[in-house]
């Protein structure tokens, strides 16, 4: 996993409550990311097995609202996220909110 600024923000949001299921707009708001950044990242995390997605069965509070797709960290994802964030914090001291941009070429 390559830790970039936006990815770090998403991981922090997920880790705030690792068992929570989040939908796309919820994540966009919480991580302050545009859709064009968030969804490719979710797709990548999903391909790596760090995040699972599932359709909500039937919207219960719905006024005819279409069903949403929810994302959730896997156990492996939560482990990897904690590791990466700890590693980033150890390597470079960052602001608490993690808005700092990563140095180019900072990998693994």
């Amino acid at each position, binding site marked *: 996993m390559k830790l970039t600024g936006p990815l770090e923000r998403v991981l922090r949001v997920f880790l705030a409550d690792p068992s929570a299921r989040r939908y796309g707009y919820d994540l966009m708001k919480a991580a302050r990311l*545009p859709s064009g950044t*968030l969804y490719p990242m979710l797709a990548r995390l999903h391909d790596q097995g760090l995040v699972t997605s599932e359709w909500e069965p039937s919207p219960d509070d719905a006024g005819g609202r279409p069903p949403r797709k929810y994302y959730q960290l896997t156990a492996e994802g939560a482990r990897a996220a904690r590791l990466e964030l700890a590693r980033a914090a150890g390597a470079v001291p960052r602001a608490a909110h993690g808005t700092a941009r990563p140095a180019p070429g900072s990998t693994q």
Partner: protein
Amino acid sequence: MTRPPRVQRVAEHLIARACRRLPGEAGDERYREWAAELPAILSDPDIGSGVRRSARALSYAAGISRCARRLGRPGPPASLPARPGFPVRRVAAGVAIYLGLVGLVVGLAVAFHLHGPWPAILIVPVAAGFVAFCLVDLARADQVRYLPKWGWAIVCLVQIPLGGIVYLALGKIPRANLEPPAQP
């Protein structure tokens, strides 16, 4: 059932168009996922006015279109850091093009004794086209260097045509410099 608001229909249309870039099944599923977020945006209590909600929904749809383009093509995924390295040749080419342009304009003006509105009539469409080209290129880029995208947009607009040339030489990341996707 009431008809959804116009903004929602426009955004749905944009998302549907974006999803056509994705292969069959995946496109359908993505459309359902992405379109389902629109009601949440348009009724978001944290966004004050209806106008701002509409703007948010449209910018969401524009982001989806960028996202579908990335997902639809094999190659570097989102958020790749650029390989470091100062693009000496591109900067040199940019300087040469700029000096050439200035020389051409001055040369033409002197050679044809252009006065009055003519220089402006010749230059303005070219300059506007160039700025538009730079801004479109900027909007479509996955990532740029040194400045955030909005910073480059200001540079392109404020210093015509030098800003655009500087953006193309420095800020734009050549396709060849994008790293191949990292293997998990």
